[in-house]
C-alpha cells in the first residue's frame, strides 16, 4: 500500500509513543489506585465506617509504590531525551509528564502519612484535598503519557528551524 506523498518526503515520520509499554502498565496502577482512594475517602467521610479509610490507606500505599516506579522511569525518560532532534521534540511533553507524576506522588506520599493517623483525622479535609490532587495529577499524567506524538510534524519544525 502506497503511503501518502507527504510521508514519503519524511523518512523518519511515524506515530511516536511517549511511554514504553511496561512504563504504561506501571502508570495504570496509580491512575486506578489514587482515584479509588479518592472514592473510598469520600465514602468514609459520608459514613464514618472505618473500613473505608483502611481501604484508602492500602490504595494510597499501592499508588505510591507503583507510581514511584513510574516516577523514576519518567526521570530517566527526561534525562535521556534530547539526543536526536526527534527526541528533543519529545522533551517538553516528557517534562510535563514528569512534573505531573511528581505532583501525584508527593501528594500521595504526604497523604499516606495523613492517612496513618487514627480515625477521623486520617482523612478530614486535608486527606480529601490530597486525594483529589493525586487523582487529578494521575489522570493528567495518563492523558499526556498515553497520547501519541506526531513525530513528523515535530521533525518538520526542527528542519525548518535549521
Amino acid at each position: 500500500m502506497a503511503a501518502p506523498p507527504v510521508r514519503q518526503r519524511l523518512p523518519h515520520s511515524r506515530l511516536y509513543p511517549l511511554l514504553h509499554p511496561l512504563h504504561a502498565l506501571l502508570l495504570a496502577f496509580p491512575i486506578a489506585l489514587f482515584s479509588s482512594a479518592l472514592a473510598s475517602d469520600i465514602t468514609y467521610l459520608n459514613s464514618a465506617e472505618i473500613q473505608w479509610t483502611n481501604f484508602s490507606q492500602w490504595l494510597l500505599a499501592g499508588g505510591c509504590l507503583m507510581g514511584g516506579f513510574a516516577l523514576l522511569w519518567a526521570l530517566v525518560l527526561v534525562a535521556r531525551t534530547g539526543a536526536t532532534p526527534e527526541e528533543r521534540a519529545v522533551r517538553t511533553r516528557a517534562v510535563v509528564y514528569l512534573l505531573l507524576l511528581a505532583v501525584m506522588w508527593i501528594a500521595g506520599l504526604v497523604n499516606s502519612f495523613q492517612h496513618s493517623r487514627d480515625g477521623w483525622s486520617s482523612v478530614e479535609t486535608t486527606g480529601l484535598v490530597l486525594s483529589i490532587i493525586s487523582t487529578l495529577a494521575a489522570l493528567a499524567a495518563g492523558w499526556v503519557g498515553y497520547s501519541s506524538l506526531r513525530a513528523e510534524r515535530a521533525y518538520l519544525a526542527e528542519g525548518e528551524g535549521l
Partner: protein
Amino acid sequence: MNRCPSLLMGVAGCLALLLSACADPGEVTNQTGPEPQLPKVNETLLPPMKIAKPAGWGNALPLVPEGFTITALATELKIPRQILVLPNGDILVAEGSGGNAPKLRPKDVIAGYIKALGKTDVEGGDRITLLRDADGDGQAEVKTTFIDGLDAPYGLAFVDGSLYVANQDALLRFPYTEGATRLTDGEEVTKLPSEVNHHWTKALTASADGTKLYVGIGSNSNVGERGLDIEEERAVIWEVDRETGARRTLVRGIRNPTALAIEPGTGQLWAVVNERDELGPDLVPDYLTSVRDGAFYGWPYSYWGQNIDPRVRPQKPELVKTAIAPDYALGSHVAALGLTFVTGETLPAEYRQGAFVGQHGSWNRETLSGYKVVWVPFLNGRPSGPPQDFVTGFITGNDRARGRPVGVTFDAARGRLLIADDLSNTVWHVAPTGAMTGSGTPANTPQ
C-alpha cells in the same frame, strides 16, 4: 542529565521539611498530680517516635535511694509482667506476651516493626514461675515452673487458699496448698473479652473483703480506629463474684487499666491506666485513679474528663458530659504498668503511706518518659504530693534501655519491693539495706 539529582534532592528536602515542621519537642513542665497541664492537640503527619533500643545491664544495676539495696532476684525469665507474693513468701511471676490483633493498615505493619525494636526478642513463657528466697538475701535459690500451658497470663491474685490467674482470654482458679511448687487443674471462673486483644493484659486484684475480683480489660485500639463494634466490654473494669463467676461492669471508658490494687487504709480500688497516643508528646497523661463505681472516664470520645478527641466519629456529646477526670496524672506516655500500695512499717518513715508505680516507658515522644519506678505519697487514702523517682537507671546516657519496669509488688511481711523487668527478663528485689538478712552485696547481674 544533572537535573535528576537536583529534582530528587528537592523532593527529599520538601518531605523532610514537611515532616519536621510538625515536630514538637514537648516540654510541658507540670504533667503530674491532680491537675496536669494539657496542651492543645498536636497531631502530626508522622507521630514523634523514639524507641530506646535494648542495652544489657553489664555490671550496672538499677539505682535506688540511699538506704536501699537492689539485687536481681532472678534472671533469664520469659517476659515477666506481674508478680504475686504468696503467704509463705514464695514469689509468683506471670510471664508471657499476648494479643492477636490483625494488621489492618500499612501503619500496623510499620509501627509493629518499630515498636518491636524496643522489646526483648525472647518469646513469652505463657507460664508462671515460682521463685523462693528463703534466706532473704535478695537472690532466689529456687526457680521453677509453677504453672505452664497458660495463655499470656498477666493478673494474679491469691484469696482464701486459691490462686487466681488472668489469662488473656479467661480468669482461672487454681487450688493451692502451702509450699506447693507446682499447680495443675485450674478451672475457669469466667471468660474474658479476648477478640483481637489489641491491649491484651488482664489486670487482676481482689477486693478488700475477698468476695470480689476486679479485672482490668483494655481497649481494642488506640482510639477506636479498628471500629467501635469490637469495643464492646473493652476499656472497662469488671467486678467478678469470686464464688459464682457472675460479673458486672464497674466502670467504662477507662482506656487501658494495666494494674489494679486496693488502698489498704480505705479498702478503695485504685488503677493505673494508660491513655491514648498520637495527640502530641504531652497528651494524654497516663493516670492513677480511684475507681468510682459507675463512672465513665471518657475513652474514646474524650480524655482527662471532657476534652474532646477529634479522631472519633460519630461524636457523643451527651455521653462526654458524663465523663469524669481521673484523680492523679503520672505524665504522658510513661506507660504505667505496675501498681502496689505500701502497708506496715518495714520501710523507712517516708515510705509508709503511698504507692509504687512501675513505668514501662514511652515510644510516642522525642524525649523519653517513664522507664522507672516512682513513689506516690498518700495521706488519708489520697495522693498527697508529686511522684518521686524511686528506682531509676533503666536508661543509659545515650538513650538505650537496660530494662523496662512492668509489675511492682510490695511484700509487706518481708519489707521488700519486687519489680518485673520485661526487657532484661529480670525480677528485681529492693529492700532497706539494714533489713537484708543475706550478705547485702549486689547479686549477680543479669546478662
